């Protein structure tokens, strides 16, 4: 099982979901639509033995939020399943039921980027402080702290 996955193998199994490319020596990237990502993860788990989640990364491209699921298996090849969500309504189905470690990543992404993961059992705050205002996502490119607004911590009057 230590043989690396080739681009042809991945194209054969995941090619129907989107475009497959060799992003790096050890990383194969599959770009697809948001609604097919769940089937693609199930297919990667079953057909390519990618049963482990390495990370979920997010990037803000101003109009779209790019969500990338990095999967890995005993073959040590990283399969990156990438999708794009519109910035004004970022919403995607959770994968925490088929990949339980994804749950905590999704909480963090929800905290910092504001992507809603439908069906997540507890999408609570993870990184930001408890009194951080709702609807402010500090890692978005267009986010700026509003002067005069209370973002948590100790209030100025030091009571």
């Amino acid at each position: 099982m230590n043989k690396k996955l080739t681009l042809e193998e991945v194209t054969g199994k995941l090619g129907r979901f989107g475009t497959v490319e060799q992003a790096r020596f050890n990383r194969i990237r599959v770009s697809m639509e948001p609604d097919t990502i769940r089937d693609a993860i199930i297919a990667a788990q079953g057909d390519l033995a990618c049963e482990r989640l390495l990370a979920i990364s997010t990037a803000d491209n101003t109009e779209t939020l790019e969500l990338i699921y990095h999967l890995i298996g005993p073959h040590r090849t990283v399969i990156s399943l990438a999708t794009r969500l519109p910035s004004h309504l970022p919403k995607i189905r959770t994968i925490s039921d088929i990949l339980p470690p994804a749950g905590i990543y999704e909480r963090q992404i929800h905290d910092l980027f504001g992507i809603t993961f439908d069906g997540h059992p507890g999408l609570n705050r993870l990184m930001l402080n408890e009194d951080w205002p709702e609807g402010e996502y500090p890692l978005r490119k267009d986010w700026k702290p509003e002067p005069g607004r209370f973002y948590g911590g100790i209030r100025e009057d030091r009571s």
Partner: protein
Amino acid sequence: MSGMSGSLSGNLVRWARIKSPWITIFNSGACNACDIEIIACLMPRFDVERFGILAKGSPRHADILIVTGRVTRKQASRLRRVWEQIPEPKYVIAVGACGAGGGVFEGLYHVLDGPECVIPVDIYLAGCPPRPDEIINAVVACLGLMEQDAAHGGKEWRQKQPAGKAGHASTGEGAV
């Protein structure tokens, strides 16, 4: 303040406190470099325990609180609670460039100002990170401050006077 009177027991407590200050370390959002240097103080190479300086896990046992780093919004209330648990007289040393002047975390969305926005700070220690001997020096300077406070009967003599009021010129916080 306890131990400030001229009684025998008060003098004894004062002597014991200055002879062997117990410290507690609190990371309020530092990058851990300062913490590593403080741990280096406690390890055999510098070994502050031979001077009687003892690191305690609980703030309720401590005399001196060593705060490393800028205060993050999440840690602010925790730092305040830790400080409140220290028995009087309590002293605070802000370690590192972040604690003193912001450092690399200045102006970020998740940090407040330095520790002085949450708790009163007695000594600022610069350096990124300060060397262990500088940290020992800061603790020793804090002991000097303790002695002076005991002689003045409290911390009030160090308070900066308001600008209009003519008072005796005293330094506010000691700087190392």
